[in-house]
């Protein structure tokens, strides 16, 4: 744990493609995974994060620093998170959700998951299949039957373009 001398402790994190990052311990322990390592005294040297690549880890560290610089004000934290995620593409968000899961960062997890869900809303079936690399395993008859189940209902509801 941080010594009481006043100098902030810095940790060194290593991504799975061997990039090294320095980050203040106070920011890094937003990750429960890292906090556990620090508390167990395993954070003396370099902390290897085998499931996160350098590009994603850089992004996560930007988030750690940004959010921990904001005092306890949920509104401001929320608007920081919104801004932080606003320019991320869908694949980057997927990387981040995996990283947040591995690092056990619930606030990032919630924000990224919500953002992914928001992007997915109103998207077409084809879009989802392409993005997730899922093959259509329905027979045409089955697919028609599933569509039939909500036939009465959704006439006139629009979806986004198929792209």
């Amino acid at each position, binding site marked *: 744990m941080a010594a009481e001398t006043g100098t902030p402790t810095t940790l060194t994190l290593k991504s799975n493609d061997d990039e090294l990052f320095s980050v203040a311990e106070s920011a890094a322990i937003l990750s429960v995974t890292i906090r556990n390592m620090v508390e167990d005294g395993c954070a003396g040297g370099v902390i290897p994060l085998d499931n996160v690549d350098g590009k994603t880890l850089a992004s996560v560290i930007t988030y750690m620093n940004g959010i921990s610089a904001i005092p306890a004000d949920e509104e401001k934290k929320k608007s920081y998170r919104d801004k932080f995620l606003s320019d991320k593409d869908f*694949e980057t968000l997927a*990387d981040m*959700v*995996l990283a947040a899961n*591995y690092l056990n960062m619930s606030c990032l997890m919630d924000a990224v998951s919500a953002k992914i869900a928001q992007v*997915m809303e109103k998207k077409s079936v084809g879009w989802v299949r392409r993005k997730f690399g899922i093959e259509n395993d329905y027979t045409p008859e089955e697919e028609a039957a599933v569509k039939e189940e909500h036939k*009465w*209902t*959704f006439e006139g509801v629009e979806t986004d373009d198929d792209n």
Partner: protein
Amino acid sequence: MATTTEENRNIPADSPRCEILSRIPADLLRDEILSRIPATDLFRIFRLVSRQWRRLISSPEFIQIHLKRSTADETQIRIIIADPTAMTYYNYAPGATKDPRFYPYPPSSSHRYDSCPIILGSCDGLICLYEGANQRFSVFNPSMNRYELRLADKFRWLFLTNYASWFGRNPCTGEYVLVIGSRLQGSHVDIRVYELKTHAARKSRSIIHQKKHGRDYKYFDPVGKFLHGALHWAACTQPMNEPHFEKKHVIVAYDFGKNEILEIPAPREFPFTVGVVDECLFVIFGNAAQVFELWTMREYGVKESWTKYANIEGGTEGFKYTQLLVPLAFSSDRDELIVDADRKKVVKYSFKEKKITLLKNHDSRESIAISYVDSLVPAK
């Protein structure tokens, strides 16, 4: 923590970016991502993605996870109003489209277009409706647009003009039930709990009921509010051939566990409505000066704990000729309250700005508005 499961198969080898999305473990996808997508999109679009996604979305576990998240999300306020020709749906989420969506009554319904189906209650995204003309019950999920007829065995409805209703899960059994409070011949109040059966299960019968003698109530708002294992209705006691009878304003409470009818005193002797916010009962009444006051009961059942929270002022337009404000929903920051004013109009009130915004005028005096949550809970 989520672990990778063998469910992530279909990965095209030539697509490294797709590979990342496919690497999202199934339980992470389900619990964190799909659970945040509106039920309508899940039901209509995402079920068509693949057999695995359909299984996942239809599974009772997922339906519960989705419901829990949806119920906890107070930024989404959904209101449905049953008018004679259609039900109108509103979502007051920040940034959500303000355009209402209309649900015409289903073709299978024998609903008469000159009257409204009566909304008896709403729970877990299901709305319970009663068609007075042909005495039929149905359960409706607006998010999925599923509508199913139900049966209430030995149903007795004596006074359509003065009744209490509720639809939800019986806290003792977890089953969906319909509760109706009505008056019986003579001088007692009767509260009955009906299991709402599908046609397939119509043989089983069970009704719980409780009477309270020497009492009659006038209910100000028929739809009960659930708190601490009991239902609550705003009412006043009616004279029953007693000399020197004094009218009393009370919250009539029905406790499921004890099967008891209780009375909780209202803070003042004015016609009022009741609601629940942050695990507290609250009431709204127009005082002698025709200003609406909102009071909360800080400690459940303790009369002395009634505390005035705020006035509801409407300015000149305001609520001048309004008798009752039925609370439908609070915004997540508790600044805004959506109310049904005398079943004439649904409005939003801001405590901070002391401002009223009209959301919708009712098409009929019979129309009932209610709030509900987005869910995949089947109407069946």
